[in-house]
């Protein structure tokens, strides 16, 4: 498969690879995909009280396009608002990395991972609000 230079660069030097504390209140974790499908993406967002994404980390099991998509997406959301992150579409990722048609689903996975991480963060926030503080 012929890949773009940008994709290969992200694969070779992935940005923000690693993990955040999944139990922290201000961290939302999205784990999407399935090992049986050959792709699993974990995306974590550390979000402050102003709704700004202070940090983003990923780990990905998947092809080079999946790795590059997740790397790119962490770069896109860092320092941005939750609203901005929610607006990210897979087509933006696919275009930026010039993904071949059979690899579009890898960018869909990255979009799903963002949505899942934000949903997890919101759930935690709602639980926090519901728990009376001592």
């Amino acid at each position, binding site marked *: *498969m012929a*890949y773009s230079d940008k994709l*290969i660069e992200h*694969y070779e030097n*992935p940005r923000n*690879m690693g*993990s955040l504390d999944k139990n922290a209140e201000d961290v939302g974790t999205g*784990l*999407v*995909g*399935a*090992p*049986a*499908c*050959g*792709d*699993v*993406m*974990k995306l974590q967002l550390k979000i402050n009280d102003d709704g700004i994404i202070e940090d983003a980390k990923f*780990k*990905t*099991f*998947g*092809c*080079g*396009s*999946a*790795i590059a998509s997740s790397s790119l997406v962490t770069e896109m959301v860092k320092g941005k608002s939750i609203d901005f992150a929610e607006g990210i579409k897979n087509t933006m990722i696919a275009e930026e990395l010039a993904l071949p048609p*059979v690899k579009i*689903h890898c960018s869909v996975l990255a979009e799903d991972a963002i949505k899942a991480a934000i949903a997890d963060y919101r759930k935690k926030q709602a639980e926090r609000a519901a728990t009376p503080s001592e």
Partner: protein
Amino acid sequence: MAVKLPIYLDNHATTPLDPRVLDEMLPYLTQHFGNAASRNHSFGWTANEAVERAREQVAALIGADPKEIIFTSGATESDNLGIIGAARFNSKKGKHIITSKLEHKAVLDSCHALESEGFEITFLDSDPDGLVKPEQVEAAIRPDTVLCAIMMANNEIGTINPIAEIGAVCRRHNVIFHVDAVQALGRVAIDVVAMNVDLMAISAHKMYGPKGIGALYVRRGRPRFRIEPLIHGGGHERGLRSGTLPVHQIVGLGSAAKYALEALTNGENDRIKALRDRLWEGLSKNLDHLFINGSWEHRLPNNLNCSFAYVEGEALMMGIKAIACSSGSACTSASLEPSYVLRALGVDVELAHTSMRFGVGRFNTEEEIDFAIELITEKVRWLRQMSPLYELVQEGVDLKSIQWAAH
């Protein structure tokens, strides 16, 4: 001495042309350009002599008589001709065929093509070792079974089927036995007579010969059987394969067969096996969670097919670009389906996505293998650092306990 990159470890896909083979071919592309069918002048005689010498060389490799060798364009054609040709000619006897799910596409798709002509095909499963058992074949035979097609060695996992035992079963039940021997040539000793093989598909480019040339062994003598041609014309090759013979290609096939026969006894296969073993031992010393796919015991000396759990195959191939190999991962295929061979032998889909195939060859060196071990080790470790699955496993999570959203 620094190794020259990239390193070729994909000798199941094709092999480099042996320079000795090329040397023997070249005169037939220049001064000896005659048509082997020209009976009236020395150009034709020279060409014909070369063709007949090659026929003897191919026959010698599999223990056949030269008259039983039909030249074709390659093993794909040989599989088509053997299977479709035998099925059609003998369709009055019955329309049932037995094959296995691990066969090459050339066999599987020839069988599928016959389904549209009213043939019924039984696709046997393999055992978890990747082998087809003679008892399975025997149990599948029916009164209307005309043909059984089982490969000698598998092109992905390198497993070697008990061909002699299956041949005995087929002969006893009067079923024509077709064997795709492409991967086994020069790696396993073959005797078509002792193995009761009726048809055998051969290709030059998996044994250091040129691409686009192969042969079909068609047994003569008792018990008699016949096949029907697929290509009609000037009646070459006993009428079974018309078309002007590509003399230089045939010379290349014959020459490759000669060296393949030598490889069985001159220690080449021992050397290749030692390199293959060195690769596996090096990798398994450095890395955990590795799994061999298919029988280790009944395996070609040059094949290593293993899964690097938690590391997706295509991602690994991108990381080890300096090594040419292949993967059973879905992400490498246009269909996004993992290897049908691995699935047929019951390898977990998860592991199929992480499988890699290495094929060692005549021209690989110890230095290349050591380089490969280092590079693969480094990249697998790196990709595992990146793998959420590896992280979960390190945390003691059972991956099967997670509700994955399959898509």
